[in-house]
């Protein structure tokens, strides 16, 4: 670090320390408009080592401008009221308007030897800077070094995601290790730039080949596949639910999420019914042909003949209907066929059991219908023909970004799909069956880890997310939680995040919640939240040396929801219709 000479310091002078100075905070008398809130400044000082005869050490104290007070002591409030009442322009009067006192309240960030240190690590200041000391604006290079902190020596971990808001020339790099290991929360209101920020981080992590699984409820991340450098790394999955590749319990969860809860008797028979149906639909083409004809005939349903047997919830519903019909009519021949083709002796049901199971068919059909509609929408938004792999751990690959499209599904089904996948991945990591670490990104995280669960699907999602938040670090499973309603997020989960990117936030409940949960967020920074610009963020926590106000860098990818001007789109459509008509 080069020591600045006096002449340089004179040009960079911003103010003088006045009043009481402490090792945590001091006040700076500043000239008009020389400084902005969140600016990073420095003060040179001398510090004698205790019980040492060595000459005092020259140090540089780093500080951040928390807020600026502007006061005209010669302009009494009483006069202001009088001007307002009489609608008089103050310039027309004899009031003094030119003498203002501008004071910047600065938070001490730390100190380092003035003689130089290769890294940017700051020591705690244990003695206040001297009143009447001059504060100055350090070089951009020095600021970048200090913002980077210990990352200076660990550049491989650094993610280049932003610039300082007040010094656009200063790049802000954050600690990727802290993000993937100790969880990150990106909190902001709609339109503040959450997804933009997340995409920038993902692009940076992808350059380091870190495995990422994105749960994408709105198609915000489909554009990642369009980035040339990421083209081979991005895999998009639509969330078609491969019913017969699931465990029976998972299917029950889905049915209950999309229809309504199963009775205990239905639940007790579900394993046999599900496994029986699976065996029924797994045969040679000839066998399947024979079974299709039999089922169509048995149920008097020609549609089955037309479409054949497909391993989905509709088929499961038909199969259960066949069992119920045979049981109720005591059709021993039909029951024998079912037992033979399903391999489940328990399906030779009595009339009573058949009556119990009758209600299951309507649940299965309702769930099948809803699921079908959602799958269609999901597939369209995902722009992918690739269904989710049965083995969830296949989503986690070196250098791969797996995007699980959840758009089109209702919130509880999204939560269900998420918890099934996240559970499988986490379990695989715990059992060491999955060797690679992984980062799970939860867009609209308040749906996957809500503060209060109103449905079983949400409860399961909370449990999963909370477990990953609490224990994921040990097993190499990291989280990025993104939410526009932080106050609806599970507090335990959010408080486990060690890094935060907080953007514009207007809702008072969200501001209060964030202030309470995010310990590293200072009061003055919290007060800035409603006034941040789009793309501006406060970085806080382990990802950065100290909290800073930044402008996020633009990601290369585009989001599905980045809206175009509605009227421009209208005119384009009109033009294309006119072209087609002419043709």
């Amino acid at each position, binding site marked *: 670090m080069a020591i600045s000479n006096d002449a340089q310091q004179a040009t960079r002078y911003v103010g003088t320390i006045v009043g009481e100075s402490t090792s945590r905070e001091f006040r700076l008398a500043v000239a008009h408009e020389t400084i902005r809130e969140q600016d990073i400044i420095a003060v040179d000082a001398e510090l004698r080592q205790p019980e040492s005869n060595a000459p005092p050490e020259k140090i540089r104290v780093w500080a951040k401008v928390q807020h600026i007070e502007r006061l005209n*002591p*010669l302009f*009494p409030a*009483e*006069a202001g009221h*009088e*001007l307002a009442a*009489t609608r*008089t322009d103050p*310039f*027309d*009067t*004899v*009031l*003094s*308007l*030119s*003498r203002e006192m501008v004071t910047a309240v600065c938070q001490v960030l730390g100190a380092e030897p003035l003689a130089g240190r290769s890294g940017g690590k700051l020591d705690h200041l244990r003695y206040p800077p001297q009143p009447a000391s001059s504060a100055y604006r350090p070089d951009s290079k020095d600021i970048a070094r200090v913002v980077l902190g210990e990352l200076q020596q660990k550049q491989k971990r650094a993610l280049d995601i932003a610039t300082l808001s007040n010094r656009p020339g200063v790049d802000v790099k954050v600690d990727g290790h802290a993000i993937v290991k100790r969880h990150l929360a990106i909190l902001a209101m709609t339109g503040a730039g959450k997804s933009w920020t997340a995409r920038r981080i993902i692009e940076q992590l992808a350059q380091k080949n870190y495995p990422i699984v994105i749960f994408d409820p709105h198609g915000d991340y489909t554009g990642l596949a369009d980035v040339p450098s990421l083209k081979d790394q991005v895999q998009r999955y639509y969330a078609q639910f491969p019913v017969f590749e699931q465990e029976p319990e998972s299917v029950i969860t889905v049915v209950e999420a999309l229809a309504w809860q199963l009775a205990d008797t239905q639940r007790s028979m579900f394993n046999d019914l599900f496994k029986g149906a699976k065996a029924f639909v797994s045969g040679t083409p000839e066998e399947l042909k024979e079974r299709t004809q039999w089922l169509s005939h048995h149920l008097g349903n020609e549609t089955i003949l037309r479409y054949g047997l497909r391993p989905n919830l509709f088929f499961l519903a038909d199969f259960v209907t066949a069992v119920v019909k045979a049981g109720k009519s005591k059709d021993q021949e039909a029951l024998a066929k079912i037992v033979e083709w399903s391999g489940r002796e328990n399906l030779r049901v009595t009339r009573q059991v058949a009556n119990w199971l009758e209600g299951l068919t309507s649940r299965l059909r309702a769930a099948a219908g809803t699921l079908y509609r959602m799958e269609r929408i999901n597939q369209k938004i995902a722009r992918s023909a690739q269904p989710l792999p049965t083995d969830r751990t296949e989503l986690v690959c070196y250098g791969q970004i797996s995007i699980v499209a959840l758009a089109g599904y209702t919130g509880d089904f999204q939560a269900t799909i998420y918890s099934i996948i996240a559970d499988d991945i986490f379990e695989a990591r715990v059992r060491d069956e999955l060797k690679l670490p992984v980062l799970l990104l939860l867009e609209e995280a308040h749906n996957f880890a809500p503060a209060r669960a109103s449905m079983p699907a949400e409860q399961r999602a909370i449990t999963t997310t909370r477990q990953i938040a609490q224990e994921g670090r040990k097993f190499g499973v990291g989280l990025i939680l993104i939410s526009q309603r932080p106050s609806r997020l599970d507090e335990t989960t959010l408080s486990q995040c060690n890094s935060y990117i907080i953007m514009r936030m207007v809702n008072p409940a969200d501001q209060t919640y964030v202030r309470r949960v995010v310990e590293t967020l200072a009061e003055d920074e919290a007060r800035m939240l409603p006034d941040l610009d789009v793309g501006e963020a406060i970085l806080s926590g382990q990802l950065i040396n100290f909290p800073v106000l930044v402008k996020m860098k633009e990601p290369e990818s585009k989001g599905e929801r980045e809206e175009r001007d509605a009227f421009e789109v209208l005119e384009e459509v009109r033009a294309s219709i006119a072209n087609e008509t002419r043709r």
Partner: protein
Amino acid sequence: MNHRTSGDRRLTEEGVHDDLQRQPHLLMKLAENALTVAESLRDNYFKNTARFVTALRRAMHAAGQGKRSDPILTAHGIENADWSAVQGEVVTFIDGGVGRVQISSQVPILLRVGSYCVRTGERRLAERERFGYYPVILGDLEGGSKERKDFPDIVRITAELLGGLSVLDRTPDLCVLMFHGPLVYLMGGYAGHTPFTERDTDLFLRHYAPDPDLGRQLKEGFLREARLDIYPQMTDRSDEWIKRRVFEPLAWIAYLYRRLIREARRRKPTPIIAGVVERGELRWFSEKVLLERVFRGLRAKGNADYFNRMYGRSDLTSPKALLDRLGYTDTLLLAMLLQPGQFSEPWEIEKYEGLRRGAVSLPGEAGTGLVNFAPLKPGKIGFPQVRGCYVHVSETTEPVRVEVFEELGADQIVEAARRTYLYARLLPGYGFPVGLDIADKLAHVPAWLTDAYGKLIRYHLGVSLQRGEISDADMRRILVQAIYMTHRDWLFRPKA
């Protein structure tokens, strides 16, 4: 149903009661008076005051309507004064402040004159306002009687006047020059100070004259007049005074006033020069103008015993006796008589009654000689005549007194009253021109500065003591106490 208008109600005792209740500062002042007046006057003090004020209001109202030929008090309305009428005016406000240091008691140490100059309507801040402040360390002066309590005042008056002259000199388009306090003080009280030396005057002029030649001209101008006209009329030792080039403070101040007026009269239009006084205890107007007319009227109607009957006394036979017994002052009475946005009829203020013979010692001399200050009464070498009026700014404040130089024309008082009202409307809770409040803040010597001076003084005294430069035992003991004892210390308790 017969509704009384608010104007009518003002003319009733109930109306006066209502007004008093709306003005707590007046109520407090009357309560204070009620406790200090003679016991026989206490019982109906409020009621009788209300009756008296009601009668005065009615008399004013009747005169205003032409129903009375001998008005007791004329009030003029300025509530329509508007900023649009005073745009582009350059206005300067001047005030002086004294910093006192706690040694063993409060000792005046530093004086500071602040000036605030502003051009109304100017949008460019750099062009709009100018601030100046000029410090004088009282210890640097050789002249003046430092043992007198009013020593800082005589220095302040001189410094403020020089500040005014300086402003007039460096502001060719000056429209209004407004001083905080009386334009001219009751000068008789300041007679008898040891004259300032030429070195003292140079110290003053160093701050006030931007051009050294101007300071020299001012100084030489005074010395020439002093030699020809002033000192010979004041003292038998005029030759010596001239030889030693001393500046007798009152003669020097009177010269500065005349110089200020002369400079102002050269300007077209003539700048308004005014002093504005807050919280004045003066009762001259009540005694010599207002109550004189009241008593005369009562005598004319054969009702001379009116006040004695009202208060159940026999000694309330003159304005002075009435004011002495009842504790009324100009501001108290006029606060009850004038409405906000009105100013009283102007009158000539007698400022120089106390100018008579007095003893004066020259710098460095122990003995005194007799000096006649009477020649400094208004005249060729004397102080200027001053006219004044009271301006009532708001209901919650007492009227302020505005003073102008009579020589500068009859319209000075009206224009000064109008501007005072306009400037003071911006501080309705204070009722004082906001520009003077700003100058007051500039002139104020901050506590940290006087503390710092105090420490320096104590340090130097301590060094002198340690070096044995002060050998007198009593003096040493006094100094030790002065330096080290700010509160009563066990070491310095009186011996049992």
